[in-house]
């Protein structure tokens, strides 16, 4: 099975998913949840009344809260997003809602100050960067017996960046189609995928490392291809396990927020396996062959 021979088709396939997603992300933007930009979210369920979203907005307006948005959920509750509310404001709104529509139950209420969100975003990015660097160093150290040990670490990180890009692209499509937004659960999904992607890539690289000491004469490309084929069964089985786990979670978890979480996880984990085989290892070969020197000389490639 020659997987590496089709590497440019595989790269193209990934880019086909990633680029439109990133274009949406940078032109239209993916809405951030209040976890990151600050604000408040109130989910309430009324015992008897089923008011129209407009009527709820009127209550917010008359309480002096700007930019409120109302969404209905499939369980019959109302999700109202607005600017950051102090506790006094929240109580005023709740009293006004009760006065107008009767008894209600708070399903959840989140209120996040604007400064918090900013710091979480910047520190979160920092944490991901620091852990990536440490992993590169660790892989380089662990592969120290192999030529160009640093390449393995960097390729693992490239595969991880690929998965992160896929997740953002998918979330961008989701935001366009289903109104997804980037929230704290998105962060959890992202972290899970990063961890999984690293593990997967290391398993493939480990096989390359092992084969290098067994087949000393084999050229690098054939050796990498052989290693991929050897680990393919394991990759598919592990993937089946985790994906099955999550598909079930996806079907069983009803709520809109968890569905988004499970979908992102599902696609991210598939991407993690895909990238370890079809991105990380091929880039390793591409690097070894210094293929970029031939990219702009199409005639030489034909020979």
């Amino acid at each position, binding site marked *: 099975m020659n997987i590496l021979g089709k590497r440019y088709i595989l790269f193209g396939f990934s880019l086909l998913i990633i680029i439109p997603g990133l274009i949406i992300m940078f032109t239209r933007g993916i809405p951030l949840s209040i976890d990151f930009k600050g604000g408040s979210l109130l*989910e309430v369920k009324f015992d008897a009344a089923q008011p129209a979203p407009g009527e709820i907005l009127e209550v917010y307006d008359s309480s002096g809260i700007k930019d409120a948005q109302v969404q209905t959920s499939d369980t019959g509750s109302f999700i109202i997003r607005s600017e950051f509310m*102090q*506790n006094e404001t*929240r*109580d005023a709104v709740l009293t006004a809602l009760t006065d107008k529509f009767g008894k209600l*139950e*708070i*399903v*959840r*209420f*989140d*209120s*996040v*100050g604007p400064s*918090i969100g900013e710091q*979480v975003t910047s*520190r*979160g990015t*920092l*944490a991901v960067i*620091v*852990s990536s660097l*440490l*992993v590169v160093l*660790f*892989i380089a150290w*662990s592969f120290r017996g192999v030529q160009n040990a640093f390449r393995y670490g960097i390729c693992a990180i490239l595969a991880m960046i690929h998965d992160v890009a896929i997740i953002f692209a998918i979330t961008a499509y989701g935001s366009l189609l289903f109104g997804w937004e980037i929230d*704290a*659960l998105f*962060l*959890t999904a992202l*972290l*899970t995928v*990063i*961890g*999984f992607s*690293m*593990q*997967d890539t*290391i*398993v493939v690289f*480990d*096989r390359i490392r*092992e084969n290098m000491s067994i087949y000393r004469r084999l050229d690098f490309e054939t050796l990498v291809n052989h290693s991929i084929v050897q680990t393919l*069964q*394991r990759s598919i*089985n*592990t993937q*089946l*396990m*985790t994906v*099955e*786990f999550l598909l*079930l*979670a996806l079907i*069983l*978890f*009803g*709520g809109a927020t*968890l569905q988004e979480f499970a979908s992102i996880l599902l696609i991210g984990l598939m991407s993690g396996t895909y990238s370890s085989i079809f991105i990380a290892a091929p880039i390793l070969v591409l690097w070894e062959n210094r293929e970029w020197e031939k990219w702009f000389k199409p005639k030489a490639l034909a020979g």
Partner: protein
Amino acid sequence: MLRNLTNRLLLIGLVLMLAIWVDTNENVQIPNPFKDDGSPLFQVDVKPRLGLDLQGGLQVLLEADIANDVKVSREEMETARNIVENRTNALGVSENVIQLAGERRIVGEFPGAEDTDAILDIIQQTGLLEFVDTGTYAPPEGSTLQTDFVPGSSTPQTPADGATVFHTIMTGKVLQGVNVSVTQTGEPAIDFVLNSEGAAIFGEHTSANTGKYLAIVLDKQVISAPIIESAITGGQGSISGNFTPETANALAVQLRYGSLPIPLKVVETRIIGPTLGEDSLQKSIVAGLVGFVIVALFMILYYRLPGLSAVLSILAYAAILYAVFKLIGVTLTLPGIAGIMLSTGSALDANILIFERLKEELRSGRSLRQAFDQAWKRAWPSIRDSNVAALITAVILFWFGSSFGATIVKGFSFTLAIGVIISLFSSLYITQSFLALLFNIVKPTNYERSIGI
């Protein structure tokens, strides 16, 4: 297959018995055989703890309300944390968790809290010092007293529930100065000076109640309860208790600055209704169970005997993981469940890696014994490296989560790290021992049927 198999199985059996003992109890203890009063030698409370997202409740993030460039000392934050903890515990809300998050934040979690306003109010008020008449009753230090003083109301209040309520003679308002001193016996004490109003009340009370107890209570918690030895009319007094120089100082600071050493403001509030929490918990359990059954079926059908040993080993993994969580008091949240899922995935992955090796070695013509030895040996480097990478990520994320009050990230990385460590024990040690045992019993000759080649 393995030379020391009996010992290994005994060890696994012992670990599993301990784990199941912890799993099935809410409180584990070992009685002390040398004392007949029933006092335990060892006792841990191992109630399962659910996060707010699984049982509903209130989470508040408090921040020091001073300019960003002014540094807040660790001690000040620690004192503020203690005060918030004492005050909210006095409300009778159980199992609150109050933790420092980074340099200037405090996270408070109140599972199952209904009256969130009361909690928020009491956190933000300044500390309340009371001098309470307890008559002939000597309240133990650290206990909580009900008093008839209610802030903002001038008339004493008597609650209807019949609990003993003590009379507050005066509050910390009448304090003019507070100092730490050393008594004649060399113990630290706190000297205080009262204003004229306080001096009058204090003089009158002490002369009428000589020989009775006077409790000094901060935020409804007894600091000390000295006996009134003689009438104190000069407006000066001294509190001695079981103080160390540090606690005496801390208390003096609390008395002087109205308790909270730094003002706190609420920067984040999250309320999760009880129905939403219960719903999420039930769905996670159902998803976990159904997922496990499918995985178990797949593993056994595809890998046969090795698959069976992996399923048993994953069960053992789950039992040990749950016991460890209960022992160290991990609060289980939805992101925490995601962390467990990922570590379960990596436990399965390790098993799959090993079994694929086993098949490979058998196909290349090795004997069962040789293949068995090689499978673990050859799979080890990749299992080691991938799990170390996962641990590195988990540690960095934990640091990020705990320094920021980002409890989601913290819960995820913590369960992931513990899960990864236990999964290594499960896939390397338990699976290997179980499989050796199965091979010893079955003595497989038909590899297609018993190993799935």
